[in-house]
């Protein structure tokens, strides 16, 4: 009997232990004060994106720096693989082994990294704020944290636009050179024409998945366009539970209801595979689409025709992490990597837009030689970033859940879903 009890106890203990894998992910229980540290110079490590073109640019940039600064050498590597870059960076912050600079820090993760004590405020450096504001102009304001400091250097944006398949438009009897995509109503009509004519299986096929960031590629660009650049949250209040927000949601609801967009995720690239006639992407997609599709671009439409629209920026920024020993060097490297010459090199290598004032005026020869990118440069100056607010990821997840429930699957009314989400988000950003 006793043996049975012991055996059972052991079995149950093992069960308990096996079941709690995810609940316990270490953490730091250390005490002490966050220390900006002495601003020393010396060797540093950096991580950059694993995007092929960015790696090429990064290698050249590092080689140029190391040649000129042998006593402050950069050791660079691609960001380690993980489910997402943000998870890898958060784990590195917790473990205390984050590099000095991560060159693809997502703005949405900055509030969390900041709360973790993982980031160095760039205002710590004598010319920190001044450099950021002189390079990026008014756009820089969006990247300021709630405490009024910069924890990220706005680096490059990927303003999203509509890519459309000219061949499908022609097949549907639409003018491919002047596509009827001027307003959201026009887009809806065009979508109906594309699908009803049989030219396309779906008009647009954004991912319907529930991940928090997916709303950046369906709702947010259209909302930015409809409102002239309003962020999801402004002055501590959710803004989307409004006439414009509801109008955008209703347009998408119609898309799903009428089968113009799919409720199922597509495993490949629906635009390249010619399953959808219109895609929502940034300039990074130009080399991807290349000659595979006969494509054109159009700005994301607003509610009214002729208005100068905004879109989502999809920026990636640079930040200095608190585990860095030589922060002064890290700051000098950031300035070097965002200098006019390096921004040109980045633009030429990747087609992504440096967040720099007067982009077309700074590199006129590039845009003359690459007219496909002019549209993006124009949008970059009006691109809207995710709001830099506490619980940023949770805010977006709350919105995504409401979007999925009401717009994609129609299980709830848009009004109910949006007002519930807005209330929840107002609480989250006030914490």
């Amino acid at each position: 009997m006793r043996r049975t009890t012991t055996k059972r106890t052991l079995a149950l203990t093992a069960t308990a232990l096996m079941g709690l894998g995810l609940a316990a992910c270490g953490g730091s229980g250390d005490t002490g004060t966050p220390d900006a540290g002495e601003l020393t110079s010396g060797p540093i490590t950096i991580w950059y994106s694993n995007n092929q073109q960015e790696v090429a640019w990064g290698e050249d940039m590092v080689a140029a720096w190391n040649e000129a600064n042998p006593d402050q050498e950069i050791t660079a590597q691609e960001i380690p693989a993980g489910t997402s870059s943000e998870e890898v960076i958060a784990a590195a912050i917790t473990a205390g082994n984050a590099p000095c600079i991560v060159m693809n820090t997502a703005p949405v993760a900055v509030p969390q990294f900041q709360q973790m004590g993982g980031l160095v405020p760039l205002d710590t450096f004598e010319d920190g704020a001044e450099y950021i504001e002189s390079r990026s102009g008014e756009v820089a304001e969006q990247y300021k944290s709630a405490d009024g400091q910069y924890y990220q250097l706005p680096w490059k944006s990927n303003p999203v636009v509509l890519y459309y398949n000219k061949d499908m438009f022609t097949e549907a009897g639409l003018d491919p050179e002047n596509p009827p995509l001027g307003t959201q109503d026009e887009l809806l009509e065009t979508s109906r024409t594309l699908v009803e004519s049989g030219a396309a299986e779906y008009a647009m096929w954004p991912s319907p998945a529930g991940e928090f960031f997916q709303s950046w590629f369906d709702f947010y660009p259209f909302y930015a366009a409809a409102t002239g650049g309003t962020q999801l949250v402004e002055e501590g209040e959710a803004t989307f539970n409004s006439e414009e927000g509801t109008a955008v949601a209703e347009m998408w609801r119609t898309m799903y209801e009428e089968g113009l967009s799919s409720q199922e995720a597509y495993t490949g690239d629906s635009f390249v595979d010619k399953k959808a006639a219109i895609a929502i992407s940034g300039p990074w997609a130009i080399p991807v689409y290349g000659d595979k599709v006969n494509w054109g671009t159009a700005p994301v439409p607003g509610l009214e025709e002729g208005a100068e629209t905004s879109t989502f920026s999809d920026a990636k920024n640079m930040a200095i992490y608190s585990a860095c020993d030589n922060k002064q060097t890290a700051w000098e490297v950031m300035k070097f990597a965002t200098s006019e010459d390096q921004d040109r090199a980045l633009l030429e290598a990747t087609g992504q837009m440096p967040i720099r004032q007067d982009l077309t005026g700074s590199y006129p020869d590039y845009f003359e030689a690459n007219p496909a990118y002019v549209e993006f440069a124009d949008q970059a100056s009006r691109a809207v970033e995710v709001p830099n607010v506490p619980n940023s990821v949770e805010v977006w997840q709350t919105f995504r859940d409401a979007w999925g429930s009401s717009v994609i699957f129609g299980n709830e009314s848009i009004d109910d879903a949006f007002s519930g989400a807005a209330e929840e988000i107002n609480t989250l950003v006030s914490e």
Partner: protein
Amino acid sequence: MTTDSTVGKRRDPGPTPDPAPRRRTKLLGRQPLGLAFSAPYVIFILAVLAYPLGYAVYISFHDFFFTAPGVAVERPFVGLQNYIQVLSDPDVGRSFLNIGVFLIINVPLTVALSLILANALNRVTRLRTFFRVSYYVPYVTASVAVVGVWLFLFSQNGLINSLLGSLAPDPSWLVNSTLAMPTVALYVTWKQLGFFILLYLAALQNIPEELYESASVDGAGKIRQFFSITVPGVRSASVLVTLLATITGANLFTEPYLLTGGGGPDGASTSPVFLMYQEGILQGNPDTAAALGVILVLGVLVIALIQRRLVGGKED
């Protein structure tokens, strides 16, 4: 004849035993070397499972978030606040309901199919290795790769719907609130079947062939033999299979993450572990994630206890 009788005499107690070895035996057992052999695994369990489990319980009672080393933050004790927050979240309630649906389909199906297939495989004489490998391949193949096949099969324009024609469900399997979780349950059953078949195959080797012969002589058919000899004969394996299927099922994560686009449609296939990932890893709220984890563990323990009572039978 003289005999030495001890009757009526007191036994010589001999020299008084040294209490030190007795204490040592009490402390280290009769085979102290065994401790040395088991120490590496015990240390592994303590470091990799027991410590994190204890730490998770600690986190769940505090206002906790991860920080960089050296950052001083207050992590006050908050009592049951995290648990209350978790239990009052409708998404959590729904995820437990989803996992309940999953377990109701997955566990009995796993036990029944793996036992039947193991029994069949045990009797197959030709191509035995081929069949065993065929069943085992899905288990050892990465979910990411296999999920692609299931997406191809169960998507709107997939093979299954093509075969079903007008009988295909609308909305399709993976975006249908009613069918998404059963589809995930079927997928997991299929994927893990190879492992459980292996457990049953091992158990089947312990049933003496004579029992079948006697039963046959007594006139029992194959079905009667299966229920009267095989099923009771592999009872201990059935307990194990039921427990393991329940534990792995309750910890479901990869499949809703990959197959239904993050617990879709509209949360219909969200699992508690998926919510823990969202809360703890993505959103930086390890305290509520840990509370959810503790609740999940307790739930699994209760189910495991009930199952042991029901399936374990006379073994207890």
